[in-house]
């Protein structure tokens, strides 16, 4: 039972992180129909930003965290401005291939600067967040993840539901032609969705770095897990991304715990294949409102 609880909390947390980073992926897809193959690298860049700032600059951790998030946001804006905007109006396959190229470029840059070694962050989380419950010991990072993750979800939820810019972003995802006809600045919407996606991915990367250590190969492999997650949840559903992430995270951890650790990385892809066979639109995929 203790072992089960341990796995459950671990799975939930990791799943939550998968879900958050998948949320960024879904946002880019919804607004511009682009599948971002560089998502894993965005995760990694977030983790390395954080690493660099904690190692070099002697600043308090919360400030480092915020600066790193800001860096990710700006990076997302820059990527959109420099690489994606010139391709607006070109066939989608060009844009998708561009993200594949971006992935290789980012990975190469990270390897060039930091090499392929495993880094770990200094231990900085307060011990208060550690939960002890009988035999179970849950490291503080899990509690912190749940708090930060929920905070982010709430903030973005409010942003999309109530702020004007959030509503413009949803309108572009819904019907781009109509949004254009009303003068919505579609380019700004694309830029913002890349920026927010990079920010959320970067945040997941930082936290995953705290849990597993920072290594470019591991982190970009996690980025690849975005695919099973979004296929499970439905490519165009932000809620689906979160729930899909949690399911994949739990499956992975339980497989690792009860069956075999070597299977844990395979399970998400088995789920991916099964979902594609049975329910290709995913759990919460677009159910088009049809009324004539």
């Amino acid at each position, binding site marked *: 039972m203790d072992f089960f609880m341990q796995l459950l909390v671990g799975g939930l947390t990791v799943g939550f992180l998968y879900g958050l980073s998948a949320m960024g992926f879904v946002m880019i897809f919804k607004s511009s129909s682009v599948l971002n193959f560089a998502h894993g690298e965005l995760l990694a860049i977030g983790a390395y930003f954080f690493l660099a700032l904690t190692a070099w600059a002697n600043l308090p951790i919360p400030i480092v965290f915020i600066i790193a998030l800001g860096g990710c946001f700006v990076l997302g804006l820059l990527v959109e401005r420099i690489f994606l905007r010139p391709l607006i109006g070109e066939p989608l396959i060009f844009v998708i291939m561009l993200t594949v190229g971006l992935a290789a470029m980012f990975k190469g840059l990270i390897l060039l600067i930091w090499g392929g070694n495993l880094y770990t962050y200094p231990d900085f989380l307060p011990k208060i967040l550690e939960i002890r419950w009988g035999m179970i010991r849950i490291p503080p990072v899990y509690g912190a993840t749940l708090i930060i993750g929920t905070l982010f979800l709430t903030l973005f939820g409010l942003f999309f539901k109530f702020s004007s810019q959030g509503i413009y972003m949803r309108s572009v995802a819904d019907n781009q032609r109509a949004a254009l006809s009303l*003068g919505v600045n579609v380019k700004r919407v694309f830029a913002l969705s890349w920026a927010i996606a990079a920010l959320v991915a970067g945040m997941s990367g930082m936290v995953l770095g705290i849990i597993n250590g920072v290594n470019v190969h591991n982190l970009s492999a996690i980025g690849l897990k975005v695919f099973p997650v979004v296929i499970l949840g439905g490519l165009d559903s932000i809620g689906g991304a979160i729930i899909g992430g949690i399911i994949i995270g739990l499956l992975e951890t339980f497989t690792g715990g009860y069956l075999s650790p070597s299977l844990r990385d395979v399970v998400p892809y088995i789920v991916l294949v099964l979902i594609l066979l049975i329910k290709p639109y995913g759990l919460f995929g677009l159910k088009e*409102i049809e*009324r004539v």
Partner: protein
Amino acid sequence: MEQILLQLNNISVVYSDVIQVLKGVSLAVEKNRIVSLLGSNGAGKTTTLKAVSGLLKPENGRVTDGTILYRESEIQNQAPETITRHGIIQVLEGRQPFKYLTIEENLRVGTATRWGKPYRDDLERVYRYFPAIEKRRRGLAGYCSGGELQMLVMGRALMAHPELLLLDEPSLGLAPLVVREIFRIIRRINEEEGTTIVLVEQNARMALQIAHYGYVMENGKIVMEGTADALRENPDIREFYLGMSAAGAVKSYAEVKSYHRRKRWL
């Protein structure tokens, strides 16, 4: 003579660099007027509107020749973001709501041209014109009826305070009573807000009732123009667009022989 707000000088529009849709269209729209653009399917009415609003661009179309003057400055081939900020808003054909947004959120998208300004009063104003949609303000637009959607998309455009409103087939697929209601509101918007309106319609009878001036298009050209009254009395218009015989009676299929008038402008 009233001040001219919009002027198209001999414009040609080409899609994908090969398909020529407009072949030299010229028209003028006076301020605070309703101008109606009639014509059969494929005549180029919608393309004319899109040329003005800049929405040709995402469809790979371009104004290749001629000029579009809005308040005496050229606006052809500008991006829709720029043109909407001049105060030109097009209401697209086929309604195009944001299905997964509520009515009120749909209306709020109409504030995109003046992001950050207060919009509460405008919401109230739109609800005054269209009381039918106020009842459903929290409901998803995807579940509204056709009439409600038409009101929604027109209200959404009003939120932008347009100076020139381009309406593309507002009567499409609506019940006759709803059509009458919609046209009544169009006239009210014109009278109370002073909005200049260009109205593209298949329903020539309705359009000529509320319009001040009309143009008839065919095959990418303007073939006839005149005041709405003159057009209503024109025998060609009566025959081809209003479904009446030249004598004035409603055309009957029971007549043994029916002669088609020649379209003399062809």
